[in-house]
């Protein structure tokens, strides 16, 4: 049986997924890559893993107080691009990054720039919650301590409380701060990791599928938290859940085989995408 939508009178000039897979030429990103108030500005970013060209001329702004969702099929380069934003790819042998990425106007790939403080400014939350094998308090205090962000025990206590409050976890753990972080539930562990990221005063938070290991309730709590965090931080999130991208983000970027195919307001991308590849992907027609 033919797909109903496949019978619609449409433009067939659009490049297809099969064309691109065979090495067909991609004509460029559709949509506005810029935002009026950018925190990070990425221009013509290219990434190679050895000979493999993983990211191709991707340009995108990460806006202030905005959540940008990066979606696309596995292997499309969205996580690779995310990891470029705080130089996490530096740790991978054979990985080369070209192009320009600035944070508040400063090039983050400057040779003189120390990536350690950068990773505090641009924090990251991973797919699987990864608390340190330490107490809840120490998990949050650790980063602040090594970055020298506090001058006294009282300041550190206040920072830990503030961070846990911002992560929506304080009320659940305030009476057991000395207990191991690994003893928390999966959702609580992920919020602990978010609190740990917040504690070092980041400007941008990167999230790589932060809810993929969580149940729907824990996912809803994290999504609510993302919306609250947006008031203070810029957020870039990689997700395989179309519904999550639609729920939490203001802008959505669709990646395909290393290309940034389309970027736009999330509502527009999910109701009326402009590129056929985007539409095929978000409607589950990819093939």
């Amino acid at each position, binding site marked *: 049986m033919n797909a109903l*939508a*496949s019978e619609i009178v449409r433009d*067939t000039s659009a490049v297809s997924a099969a064309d691109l897979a065979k090495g067909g030429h991609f004509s*460029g990103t559709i949509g506005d890559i810029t935002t009026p108030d950018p925190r990070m500005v990425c221009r013509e970013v290219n990434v190679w893993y050895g000979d493999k060209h993983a990211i191709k001329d991707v340009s995108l702004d990460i806006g202030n107080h905005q959540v940008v969702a990066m979606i696309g099929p596995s292997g499309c380069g969205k996580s690779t691009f995310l990891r470029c934003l705080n130089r996490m790819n530096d740790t991978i042998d054979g990985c080369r990054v070209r192009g320009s990425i600035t944070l508040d106007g400063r090039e983050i790939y400057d040779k003189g720039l120390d990536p350690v403080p950068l990773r505090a400014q641009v924090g990251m939350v991973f797919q699987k919650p990864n608390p340190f094998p330490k107490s809840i308090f120490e998990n949050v205090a650790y980063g602040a301590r090594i970055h020298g962000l506090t001058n006294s025990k009282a300041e550190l206590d206040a920072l830990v409380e503030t961070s846990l409050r911002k992560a929506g976890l304080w009320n659940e753990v305030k009476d057991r701060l000395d207990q191991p972080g690994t003893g928390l539930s999966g959702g609580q562990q992920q919020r602990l990791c978010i609190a740990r990221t917040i504690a070092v005063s980041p400007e941008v938070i990167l999230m790589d599928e932060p809810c993929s290991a969580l149940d729907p309730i824990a996912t809803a709590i994290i999504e609510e938290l993302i919306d609250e965090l947006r008031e203070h931080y810029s957020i870039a999130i990689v997700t395989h859940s179309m*519904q999550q991208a639609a729920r939490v983000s203001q802008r959505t970027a669709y990646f395909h085989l290393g290309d940034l195919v389309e970027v736009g307001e999330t509502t527009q991308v*999910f109701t009326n995408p402009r*590129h*056929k590849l*985007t539409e095929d992907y978000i409607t589950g027609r990819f093939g």
Partner: protein
Amino acid sequence: MAAAPSGGSPQGGAKTLGHPHRVRAYDEELTRLRGLIMEMGERTVEQIQGAVSALLGPDASPAYRVLDREPQIDFLALDADEEVFRLIARRQPTAVDLRIVLALARIAAEAERAADKAARIASHALEFRADDTRLPPPIQDALRALDEVICCAFERGVAAVSRFDIDLAVAVFEDEAEMRSAAGTLHQTLIAPAAAPLPALKLAPLVIVAHTLEHVGKHACAIAEQVIYVAEGKDVRFRNREILVETLRHRGS
């Protein structure tokens, strides 16, 4: 920057959008929903033709069939509603799929209302023919002409749904002028001396029938608007029709 848009359409002819869904059941559910709406549309056309034939034909018996069959279209509308709920709950459609589901739900409502109007015409036909009164020939001609243009537009609208064909939808908009003209002619005929043999009490149901048929034409246009919504991704309700038709005619050029 060169674009390879997902919306828009080439001039004429049906083309394909792309691949079927990875989940075959999704396609089957969408196709089932469309099937229900197509069936509603086709039955509605039959109902209108039947209702009008009760006024034009030798007897009023088609009106009884129309009234008997009216609940079947209501049941189809309920089935379509249920299918829409199920699709939204299970598939959480996005982009063109979301537009298809929303549009089909609205089209189902339009078809159901048009079918209600067919039943209303049938009721007025029975009222008119209660004493075996026949329509004077000039009124017969004007009513037949209006019925033909309205049914033709509605059929075009339903056919446009089958492939979300913009050209057919535009043709429905283009029929509007003819619908207005045919309705005007019928109204003029009803107040002309040719209708003089009919007393006012007999004219009243005919005036209502004329208005009701005009409204069926508006449902056809509303269906065409939904076809444009799906195919072009633009909500064209309440737009200036002339500008819209002109824009759609020259799309892609």
